[in-house]
């Protein structure tokens, strides 16, 4: 990472652009080892982007502002249900119109939950948010207006861009007869040879039932936008206020930071992103029911943030990737995959308690600590050094 930082700006920019293009092309390339046998690779990647989005949102709450939120799935559910109600259950709106309402509803939910509960700290906040997540689910289970246990189906898909029968461009619901404005063939990896498989193609920007790759592209685009926003906000007064609040709330308050306001802002921002992810997820699934929003998901989301390294946006993206991708990749192990996953988490907690990629600061602080230790004790503790 340090070497990368030393490169001149255009080279760095080119590197990131290349990385982004690679990310977009991933489901087309279907590289062996990485791609998931037995499960639709595009679909897995879409879920990965949703986890990335959620991890970024939760990272603002947990990593930046230091508010432990165990009920993040509640916001995810509010976003999903709002989109579902508006596009299918009680109205017939197009998805794009329902999205702003979904995120607005989630943000308001965040404010309503945050205003009374952000006065409590630490463990208490964790318990209250845990309750919130369950309450949202139970409300959905018991409310007929929300489709109770049966859930809601036929949630609208994003508008597809297609070539009409007259050759012009049509924007709207995907229809069986219409094709995308162009199609992209996938690669086929045979024994030692790579072929372009013209039979297996993806219609560009047709959000259909079978091919999930366009959803992945949409999800990835949203992730990149949120990533940019995250960067801009973090490097500003808002980001500093969050961090100061996390570090020492009383001292921050006495240094002129309206901590309550900023905590609420962090909560609302996190909720906004969670709601966006929820709405996109609902659209892709086309069907949701209360079982899509179990407490388990809150824990998995938090695991993604903690595994990656809370406070570091790149770390949490890696964490989200691992949490969403590994269980799908190793589906062959069937029931054992959860066990393996759990064992991996425990191993991680022992070997890298700050997560795989802790924020640079933690790394630097640890290095400094280590240097001091060497100076004090006069010998280098090999294992400690390897860990840093």
């Amino acid at each position, binding site marked *: 990472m340090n070497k990368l930082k030393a490169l001149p700006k255009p080279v760095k920019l080119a590197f990131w652009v290349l990385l982004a293009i690679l990310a977009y092309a991933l489901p087309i390339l279907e590289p062996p080892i990485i791609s998931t046998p037995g499960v639709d690779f595009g679909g897995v990647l879409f879920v990965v982007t949703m986890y990335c989005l959620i991890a970024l949102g939760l990272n603002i709450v947990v990593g930046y502002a230091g508010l432990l939120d165990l009920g993040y799935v509640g916001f995810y559910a509010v976003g999903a249900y709002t989109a579902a109600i508006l596009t299918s259950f009680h109205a017939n709106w197009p998805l794009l119109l329902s999205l702003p309402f979904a995120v607005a509803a989630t943000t308001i939910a965040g404010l309503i939950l945050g205003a009374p509960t952000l006065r409590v700290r630490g463990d208490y906040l964790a318990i209250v948010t845990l309750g919130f997540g369950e309450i949202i689910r139970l409300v959905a289970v018991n409310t007929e207006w929300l489709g109770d246990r049966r859930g809601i189906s036929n949630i609208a898909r994003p508008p597809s861009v297609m070539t009409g029968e007259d050759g012009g461009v049509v924007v709207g619901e995907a229809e069986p007869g219409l094709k995308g404005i162009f199609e992209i063939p996938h690669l086929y990896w045979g024994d030692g040879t790579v072929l372009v498989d013209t039979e297996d193609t993806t219609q560009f920007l047709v959000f259909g039932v079978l091919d999930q790759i366009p959803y992945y592209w949409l999800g990835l685009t949203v992730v990149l936008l949120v990533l940019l926003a995250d960067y801009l906000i973090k490097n500003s007064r808002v980001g*500093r206020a969050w961090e100061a609040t996390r*570090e020492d709330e009383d001292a921050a308050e006495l240094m002129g930071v309206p901590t309550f306001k900023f905590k609420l802002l962090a909560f609302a921002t996190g909720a906004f992103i969670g709601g966006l992810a929820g709405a996109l997820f609902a659209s892709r699934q086309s069907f949701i029911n209360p079982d899509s929003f179990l407490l388990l998901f809150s824990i998995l989301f938090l695991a993604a943030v903690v595994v990656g390294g809370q406070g570091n946006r790149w770390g949490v993206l890696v964490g989200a990737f691992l949490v969403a991708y590994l269980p799908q990749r190793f589906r062959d192990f069937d029931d054992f995959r959860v066990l393996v996953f759990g064992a991996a988490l425990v191993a991680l907690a022992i070997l890298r308690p700050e997560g795989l990629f802790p924020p640079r600061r933690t790394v630097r602080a640890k290095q400094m600590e280590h240097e001091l230790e060497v100076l004090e004790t006069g010998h280098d503790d090999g294992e400690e050094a390897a860990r840093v």
Partner: protein
Amino acid sequence: MSDATTPILEVQNLTLKFGGLTALDDVSFGIKEGEILGLIGPNGAGKTTCFNAVTGVYRPTSGDIRFQGRSLTGVKRYRITQLGIARTFQNIRLFPSMTALENVLVGADAQHKTGMFSALFRLPRHRAEERDGHERAMELLRFMGIHKRADELAANLSYGDQRRLEIARAMATGPKLICLDEPAAGFNPQEKVQLMELIRKVRDRGFTVLLIEHDMRLVMGVTDRIVVLEFGRLIAEGTPAEIRDNPAVIAAYLGVDEEDAS
């Protein structure tokens, strides 16, 4: 410096009770603009409590605190800071995993207004405030002599530098009154002399200073006036020379012989 006789901060009949304990009992004093006021007293006399009342951490049981003629009762803590009272802490309370520069920037942000929207779209306000904040922060770090360590994590600074960083952070909030809570705690004699110089320089930049300190030599050497507390009551007030010869103060600090006590 408009009117040197009106106090910038007035503490009026301040009483603070914690349950049955009276931490401050009917304390009144004022600080004039541009002066260095020392607040001294034996341990447990109520000095830090007095500080906490001024900065809004504790609400007075009765009495009032007026800053520039405005009552601070019921004003939120961050608002008091924005109005122009900054403080340091007896036990250092920096933001340990932020850099020295960022610590000072948080202070500078007290006078800033950039919100989510301006930050997200990098509006002119954000740019102007970032530039202003960085300039002010670097200037203050230079003033404190720790600018070379600007990118160091606060937790990794030496003890003395952490104390200096706390003062820089307090100054960055753009205060008129700056309250230093035992800034020399843990310093050796030489560092104390440097600190004395520094406090004078802080005052010369136009800040009014309220100083809690145990070290008599430092207090006598740097303050214009001294207020002495004992068991929550104000027992003396005056110039360092007056305080030095005040029998009540000597008794409070040195104790009284049983025979003389009557």
